[in-house]
């Protein structure tokens, strides 16, 4: 079994209230490393065997229609071992 990961993030120009709230909370706790924080979603999809290119194309299509909302989000598909 392999794991396909789809990372979905809001497009950079879209307001990210959650990321902002996290970014504002960090310094209050004494963490000062962050210039900015964006929060997105991560999907871990288990598939049988090694993912084929055709399967990855299918995943991209699924990401395009279901996992991400292309009006406001972008996504990346990758295989993780």
């Amino acid at each position, binding site marked *: 079994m392999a794991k396909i990961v789809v990372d979905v993030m809001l497009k950079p120009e879209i307001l990210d*209230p*959650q990321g902002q*709230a*996290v970014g504002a*909370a960090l310094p*209050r*706790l004494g963490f000062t490393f962050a210039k900015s924080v964006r*929060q997105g979603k991560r999907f871990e999809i288990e598939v049988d065997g090694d993912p084929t290119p055709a399967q990855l194309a299918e995943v991209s299509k699924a990401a395009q229609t279901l996992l991400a909302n292309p009006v406001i989000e972008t996504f990346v598909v990758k295989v993780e071992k």
Partner: protein
Amino acid sequence: MKVGVVTFPGSLDDRDAARAIRAVGAEAIALWHGDSELHNVDAVILPGGFSYGDYLRCGAISRFAPVMTSIIERANTGMPVLGICNGFQILCESHLLPGALTRNHALHFLCTDQRLRIENTTTAWTSNFTVGQEIVIPLKNGEGSFQCDDATLAQLEDEGRVVLRYVGENPNGSRNLIAGITNARGNVVGLMPHPEHAIDPLTGPSADGLPFFTSVLTALVGK
């Protein structure tokens, strides 16, 4: 008798909690999240709402508010603390109560008149109920599904720390239909449903929520 009600940015049911406290003849004291001073209150309610917008995880950011440091300290020495909905979430994030509240299994916000059963009447907030008593009070949240690992669940059940259970269909996917729990000492209680919205049938489904507030007065007088 003074009961503090904390307002975090995004708290919504703080005025309702204060109204409920007044309805049972106690004094409601407004506490501010950014102020660690508890103004000599005898008990504290963490009210419902969307503190910090429920961003990240419900209650995750509020837990670090200065007022919480004082509340955690006093709770550990026996002060009664009630967390309602968002307040329950904050108590879990603060580790004053075990487990966590996660997305409702239907993935929607749900506002409903919920039937519940009282399971434990030895806490500071439930002594004026009887065991097995059924009540109807509002449940309204998007993340009310109580989750914890098996060991914690077994411990909660073995020690009788489940305070309140949903009756009928599981409204949100909570383990063992858990709607509310207490710490081992019985002074800290967290509930998903909202007793402060059931103090008058004019504005709620019943007046079944009142005993939560009279109970704490009994507990405080008994001291």
